[in-house]
């Protein structure tokens, strides 16, 4: 292979990294470089520095160290049997690229992953070296997200956590069967074992911080994972229950869903359809319901149809409300916060505004209109001082009333 320059390598290794959905750069400890040494800062809310036409934000330099891999996971463009062009960055190249992008305010930090070369430990060492060099040689205070390799030595994973803001391990597929079929070299138990180790290390650190202020930091932005949607036979119910169990057991900050998109040089085991983007979107909505709206896993699973799939034409919260109509209408002026959160079309912020406002006045319909985004969507489900939806929630054709009328145009309709 002829030698590639940095830009050629970047094209290959960024292309290889784009199937990872995570781009978050938020939720870490606050740092800045006002002491005049080093470079960079992090401040709670992440910043999306650009958006690509796929609607995904670009906040981090997301690349692989190398796209060569000894594994043969069917869904992965970098698998051993794929014919993609291979490239490899040295740790120093990644460090320089990160710094030169960071200085120009293109990015907030780096998200580094890698194909597995030689051995898990060797690969992990290379990844850790990039983070170490950024932190120690260049006093870099921006965001670092490292993907850890499931079978790497625990000491290397610990070092990754010391330098990184976030570490992640992908569970890849929601079912063990799917993993066996599509990623034969990966092992669900080992992946979860590694997640457990990271969780324990994070807990330890938090414990230590209570006693010693100087306790070394460990992945202050926690850990996350990713599941591929639409590559195996798992339905939405399987995926939602899996996500909820991951949140519960490993204290994950985020579970990312990635609609499986056709990759160049795909394996024949995989569906060659357009990625199920709407399905991915509905799963994220269900995830939000669990994390911010007080829905239990059972609630969101109940919003799914008999075939275990969430409806694609309406959001899961509306689906739940249409299915459990006896909970409605809700009196905006009296209902507790958790009940208000169940009203379709009402977000967390709107609910907060309603709760503070109603201390001062009995809310009327036009008050609710000012406090929310779309009154039309909410109206059938609420009671206000001047409004009561007569019989609307008992109508058989209620779905028609509240379902969004416009449909996004299919750009590439089959």
């Amino acid at each position: 292979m002829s030698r590639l320059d940095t830009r050629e390598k970047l094209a290959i290794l960024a292309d290889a990294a784009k199937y990872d959905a995570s781009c978050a750069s938020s939720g870490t400890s606050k740092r800045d470089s006002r002491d005049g040494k080093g470079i960079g800062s992090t401040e709670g809310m992440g910043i999306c520095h650009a958006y690509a036409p796929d609607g995904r934000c670009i906040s981090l330099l997301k690349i692989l160290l190398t796209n060569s891999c000894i594994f043969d996971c069917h869904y992965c463009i970098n698998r051993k049997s794929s014919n993609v062009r291979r490239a490899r960055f040295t740790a120093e190249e990644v460090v320089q690229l990160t710094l030169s992008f960071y200085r120009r305010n293109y990015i907030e930090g780096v998200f580094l992953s890698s194909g597995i070369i030689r051995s898990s430990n060797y690969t992990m060492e290379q990844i850790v070296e990039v983070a170490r060099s950024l932190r120690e040689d260049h006093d870099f205070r921006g965001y670092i997200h490292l993907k850890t390799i499931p079978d790497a030595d625990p000491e290397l994973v610990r070092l990754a956590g010391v330098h990184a803001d976030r570490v992640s391990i992908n569970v890849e597929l929601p079912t063990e069967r799917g993993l066996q079929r599509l990623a034969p070299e990966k092992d669900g138990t080992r992946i979860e074992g590694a997640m457990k180790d990271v969780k324990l290390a994070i807990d330890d650190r938090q414990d230590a911080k209570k006693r010693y202020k100087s306790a070394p930091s460990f992945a202050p932005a926690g850990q996350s994972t990713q599941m591929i949607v639409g590559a195996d036979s798992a339905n939405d119910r399987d995926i939602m229950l899996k996500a909820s169990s991951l949140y519960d057991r490993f204290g994950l900050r985020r579970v990312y869903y990635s609609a499986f998109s056709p990759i160049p040089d795909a394996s024949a085991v995989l569906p060659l359809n357009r990625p199920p983007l709407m399905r991915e979107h509905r799963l994220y909505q269900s995830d939000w319901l669990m994390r911010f709206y007080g829905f239990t896993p059972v609630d969101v699973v109940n919003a799914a149809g008999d075939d275990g799939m969430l409806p694609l034409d309406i959001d899961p919260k509306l689906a739940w409300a249409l299915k459990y109509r006896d909970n409605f209408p809700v009196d905006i002026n009296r209902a507790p916060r958790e009940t208000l959160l169940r009203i379709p079309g009402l977000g967390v912020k709107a609910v907060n505004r309603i709760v503070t406002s109603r201390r001062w006045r009995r809310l009327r319909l036009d008050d609710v209109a000012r406090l929310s985004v779309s009154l039309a969507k909410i109206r059938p489900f609420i009671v206000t001082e001047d409004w009561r939806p007569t019989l609307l929630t008992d109508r058989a054709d209620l779905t028609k009333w509240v379902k969004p009328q416009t449909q996004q145009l299919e750009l590439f309709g089959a």
Partner: protein
Amino acid sequence: MFRTGYAMRLVTLAEEDDFDGWRDAARSLAGARVAPQDVAWRVGESAGDLFAAAAGPVAPGSAAAQGAPAFSVPRGFVALAETVICHSDPERFSLLYALLLRVRDQPRVLDDAADPLVRRLEIMAKGVRRDIHKMHAFVRFREAEDADGSRFVAWFEPEHHIVRAGAPFFARRFASMRWSILTPELSVHWDGARLTESPGASRADAPNGDPIEETWKTYYASIFNPARLKIGAMVKEMPRKYWKNMPETALVGELIAGAQAREARMVDRSRDDIGGNAGVAWEGVRAEAMACTRCPLYRDGTQTVFGEGPLDAPLMFVGEQPGDQEDLAGRPFIGPAGQLFDRALGEAGIDRSAAYVTNAVKHFKFERRGKRRIHAKPDGGEIDACRWWLDQERSLLRPQITVALGATAARSLFGRVVTISSMRGQAQQARDGGETWVTVHPSFLLRVRDNKEEEYARFVEDLVQIGKRLEALS
């Protein structure tokens, strides 16, 4: 309030975002109980306006000196006002003053988010915060050399008057660099220790390029996934008004234009490549299907009955579901209906061993009557749940012709309920685009009482027609 023949009060503020000036003036106006509609606010150079003296910047405490009692405002109001001051709406000063008077009488009014004035100001504050956030995100520095070495310079055009409010972020992040952000209204500079200001600048004052930008554009183009085009989502978060000062946005047009072609190429190429490992893939899919729990039917059935036949078969038959014997043997179409099917195929001159035979639903659904298991029709949910497997089989085989045997198979292939009589005898297009023919299920021929012979003959006739069509295609 009492007012007659009273001239308008004019307040002149030093800067667009002069919060201190506004606060001092507002405090003394409020002390004098001047109504909001009697105050005009402006920003500008000229002092010595006709009435400016009446309510110009006043030292703290002077309200008390005028005989009005001093009053304090909640912290939330100060934070809101500091933000709203940066908005580009010329009415902001007067709206804030109106709210100040309300706050004085009713300190908790800010909690009433449904109040129209509070809501309007909250929305303005949100616009300002968003603009500051977008400044932090979309400023693009270019490296330039000056007398003291390298300096990073950006040209940026914000929507509101936020440069001063947005600058400290860059001082925290890039403290060890020397940088300047130039905007039409105001420029800010950092020398490594202090923030300084200078008047507005023009685009020509900023460097017109940076060699790293090409590398950045390479990254932007490569990280984009053409299979997931979502232009609306991009524009919502990165409005076009910011594009002209971001180097990477020059690529957006060609990336979108190329996306469809790139995706089609990816799919095509991968379709062409299938074949080599189709056998492995089919084995993998089948193994996964054996443990399927996508619908409740797996609980009662003995096993998943997957399709069988050569993977390069040009002809695929899709039946309804396995029956009693198929359930026990684990193979499709071997019971009474299967035997009848074989006989009809023979008469029509079609070799079953050259066709792939499968079912729309892959578990046996039945009701128990005494010792017998009686076939029960699968419902829509079960058909939909199982369609995933059929789709997998179809994408692996890509048969030239698919034959739907009966209504269940047709529902699965077309994605809707169809009547067999209306579709029979001519080529149809399935949901996934493949050529599909519809006929009855062989078990119908076992069940039917009247015209048994005729129905059977018609079934064979359908198969003959399909056989001819297949010959024509190959």
